[in-house]
């Protein structure tokens, strides 16, 4: 494992995350944990079916429930299950729930648009893509032409902390808590809804129970809580139920991906046609689902050099909840199809899929990762030709590639050094579990050579210095360079005080190492003592500049390659993942714990999407069959394989790259191609459930 040892974290740091003690004690306060005095409970009234009209309701009975303050039905039809058609507000949770039951809504459900494969425009009727003629030429000039169609399902975010917001409007100010990936965006939303200036709204999200792309802005929950709090002059709480989470907080859209690709006998891909369809809500993509909308786009083709491609895409409207951004939107589903297609192409011309990838890889970094990963998984040693593993339980090996183009954003970091030596780092970004608190604190602390005991990190309030919304893997990327500069500003401020104390002309002669200031002549001063030289209670540095720690955007990609080792039981069709080797470029690594944790977590979440998760709509009425956590299967402890996370060679010029999306991109392709290698037939549809494995085997003519 010399790759690990060679690439130890640049800021040599294995400390536990800074907020974990509060989390294991249960004292970390999430939005859902606030129950304010005199608080009202409110909830949306929702359509029960995908395409339904309200036939009757008992508004009077709902209003008559003791404690119910307001019931409003403002729509008479729902276009998807969970569509908001009104709301209820009550003194207590019990009254709110009783009121909803008393409302006794009856719907007439009509046939919904529920299946992507039925509602899409057929291939033949699709509008020709711009490059159609050139793509056709590439196909004509190819030695071999291969076509295939792939399908992926809808995945819901299912954040464990539900979407929600608490607003306490107090006339000329407001206090609000929200579960969000964008606390400053949320404050803007609420200020607008409450008719206040942003500075009058104290918005907090110090702990957020997962977002995965679904929690931008204050959302519909925030809007409702603000409206009711303002009206009744009382705090109002709107927290979704688990069922609502599945129905109306966005999802990863389903896809169908058709590919017709031509190549030469010696393995050069010439080009062809890629047509994709993505499922969106009843009126299209980008609608106002709680947490922001998204389209049904599929990032196919990508990563490999596919030559001249004519790409067509259609967003297909279904009577289901609107999609939203979800960890690397459009990418994991694309790479499932792309990797299987790459395998298919290689097999067609009789080339080893590994060699075929090396040949058509577009990134030098990934090409090297491929070689290292192959060694770690034992590609040459263990892998047999497709379907040739003996016995009924067959093992297979597969490859997945991915990356994420890094972008940065404006941000400001504040560093306060207190007279007692305390180091405080303040940022308005939010930590949804990615370890932002830890990363930003460790960047400053290690730059100054100070121990964790002196560190306090404050994030997650809108009043803190500006920071981007945490989406698209930009939080660390945008903030870390500014924090490094701020740390140096703080260091230089103290060097100045020390230089003056030592009667030195300038600060150049004063060094800070491991928390001790030194100068020629054997002079030295401890950090704590130097801090006491301050005249005020603290020393504040605020920085918005990147300094030397940032390459301009788009010059770096967080490349990723993963290898999967799976076992498939050819009698039951059950797939088990034995091992995943995950190689990941992170730029400048900061905290090994949080990096490896986010990498392995991304792999498991992608494994879960690949094998289990599925939003199933009732084809008769559009209602989701499994809007819960017992029937909506999410990978659990028994499904976790051995995962080997490899932090790729550090790149000090790149600064710190975020890890929200990149580790989740390659996994589906790796598992999908490993399953194909095991059974000798491709399962071209996720989730790879046992019935699909058995069907693929039977189509192939049984087990070899």
């Amino acid at each position, binding site marked *: 494992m010399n790759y690990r040892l060679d690439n130890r974290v640049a800021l040599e740091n294995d400390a536990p995350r800074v907020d974990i003690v509060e989390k294991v004690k249960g004292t970390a306060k999430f939005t859902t944990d606030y129950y304010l005095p005199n608080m009202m409970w409110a909830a949306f009234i929702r359509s029960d079916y995908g395409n339904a009209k309200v036939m009757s309701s008992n508004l009077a009975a709902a209003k008559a429930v003791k404690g119910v303050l307001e019931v409003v039905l403002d729509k008479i039809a729902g276009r998807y299950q969970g569509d908001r058609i009104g709301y209820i507000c009550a003194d207590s949770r019990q009254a709110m729930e009783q009121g909803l039951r008393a409302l006794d809504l009856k719907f007439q459900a009509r046939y919904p648009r529920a299946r992507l494969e039925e509602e899409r425009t057929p291939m033949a009727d699709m509008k020709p893509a711009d490059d159609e003629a050139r793509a056709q030429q590439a196909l004509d000039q190819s030695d071999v032409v291969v076509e295939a169609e792939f399908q992926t399902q809808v995945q819901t975010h299912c954040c464990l902390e539900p979407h929600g917001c608490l607003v306490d409007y107090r006339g000329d100010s407001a206090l609000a808590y929200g579960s969000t990936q964008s606390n400053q965006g949320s404050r803007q939303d609420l200020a607008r809804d409450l008719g206040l200036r942003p500075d009058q709204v104290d918005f907090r999200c110090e702990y957020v129970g997962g977002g995965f792309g679904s929690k931008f802005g204050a959302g519909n929950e925030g809007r409702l809580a603000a409206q009711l709090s303002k009206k009744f002059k009382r705090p109002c709480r709107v927290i979704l139920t*688990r069922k609502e989470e599945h129905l109306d907080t966005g999802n990863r859209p389903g896809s169908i991906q058709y590919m017709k690709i031509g190549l030469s006998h010696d393995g050069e891909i010439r080009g062809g046609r890629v047509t994709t369809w993505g499922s969106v809500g009843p009126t299209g993509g980008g609608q106002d689902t709680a947490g922001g909308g998204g389209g049904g786009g599929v990032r196919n083709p990508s990563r490999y050099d596919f030559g001249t491609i004519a790409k067509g895409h259609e967003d297909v409207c279904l009577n289901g909840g609107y999609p939203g951004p979800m960890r690397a939107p459009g990418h994991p589903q694309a790479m499932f199809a792309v990797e299987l297609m790459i395998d298919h192409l290689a097999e067609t011309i009789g080339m080893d899929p590994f060699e075929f990838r090396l040949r058509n890889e577009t990134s030098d970094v990934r090409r090297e990762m491929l070689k290292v990963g192959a060694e770690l998984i034992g590609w040459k040693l263990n892998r047999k030709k497709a379907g040739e593993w003996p016995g009924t339980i067959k093992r297979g090996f597969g490859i997945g590639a991915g990356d994420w183009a890094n972008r940065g954003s404006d941000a400001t970091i504040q560093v306060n050094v207190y007279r007692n030596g305390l180091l405080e780092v303040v940022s308005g970004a939010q930590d949804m579990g990615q370890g932002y608190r830890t990363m930003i604190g460790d960047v400053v602390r290690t730059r100054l050579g100070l121990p964790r005991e002196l560190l306090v990190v404050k994030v997650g309030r809108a009043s803190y210095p500006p920071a981007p919304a945490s989406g698209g893997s930009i939080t660390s990327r945008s903030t870390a360079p500014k924090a490094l500069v701020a740390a140096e500003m703080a260091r230089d401020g103290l060097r100045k005080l020390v230089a003056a104390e030592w009667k030195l002309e300038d600060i150049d002669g004063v060094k800070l190492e491991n928390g001790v200031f030194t100068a020629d002549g054997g002079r030295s001063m401890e950090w704590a003592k130097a801090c006491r030289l301050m005249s005020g209670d603290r020393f504040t540095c605020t920085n918005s500049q990147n300094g030397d720690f940032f390459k301009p955007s788009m010059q770096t990609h967080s490349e990723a390659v993963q290898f999967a080792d799976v076992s498939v039981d050819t009698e039951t069709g059950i797939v088990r993942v034995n091992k995943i080797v995950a190689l990941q470029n992170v730029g400048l690594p900061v905290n090994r714990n949080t990096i490896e944790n986010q990498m392995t977590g991304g792999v498991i979440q992608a494994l879960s999407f690949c094998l289990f998760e599925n939003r199933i709509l009732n084809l008769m009425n559009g209602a989701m069959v499994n809007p819960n956590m017992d029937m909506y299967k999410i990978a659990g402890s028994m499904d*976790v394989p051995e995962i080997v996370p490899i932090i790729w060679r550090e790149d000090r010029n790149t600064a710190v790259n975020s890890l929200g999306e990149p580790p989740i991109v390659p996994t589906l392709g790796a598992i999908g191609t490993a399953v194909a290698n095991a059974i000798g037939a491709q399962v071209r549809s996720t989730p790879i459930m046992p019935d699909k494995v058995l069907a693929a085997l039977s189509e192939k003519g049984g087990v070899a």
Partner: protein
Amino acid sequence: MQPDQESKPGGVSRRQFLQGAGGAAAASSMLATLPQLALGKDAAEPAVRPGLKRISATGGNITLQINGQPAQVAITPDATLLRAVRESHGLTGAKEVCDRGACGACTMLVDGRSVNSCMMLAIDAVGKKITTVEGLVSDGQLDPVQRAFVQNDACQCGYCIPGFVVRSRALLNETPKPDRDQIKAGLCGNICRCAAYVRIFAAVEAAAKGGQA
């Protein structure tokens, strides 16, 4: 097939059934104890079995033993233990996530055994020893499981972690030296959406090596 269909009025969810059944069970057990003959005009308030308290539908107080302390908790008969502890008693470590026993985020110890507190009625917890994640800290010292979670970074967003910590404590009480497979099986009722499982397994292994609490 008739394309148009109407929703069934008064469809009963599992949740409502549980809540309803709890109230009914409490009521019927109360009734069952009544000496029928004593039901006269002057028996408007029925006598009840000693230890069993009548809670009206609009709510009342019960005493729960939470983290070693008796606590007066205001509940309605249909309140789950989770809602009573979070919303009435103010201890919010245990989380409401699936609200039907499928994710383990609400796990508490009841008489030393781990239960999904969203699936237990508060009135059924009367007289039992309840330990929440907050109660694992004693004299300011973290439980060895909590310490191991900290040292192994066994967490991401942290919303599921109180449940994992309490379930891991129970697992180690049941099986003090579990192997990796026993840990996986022992935690299979808990879901971590961020999927910090690798670190959670390592933490439980470390806690097991560190010995019993």
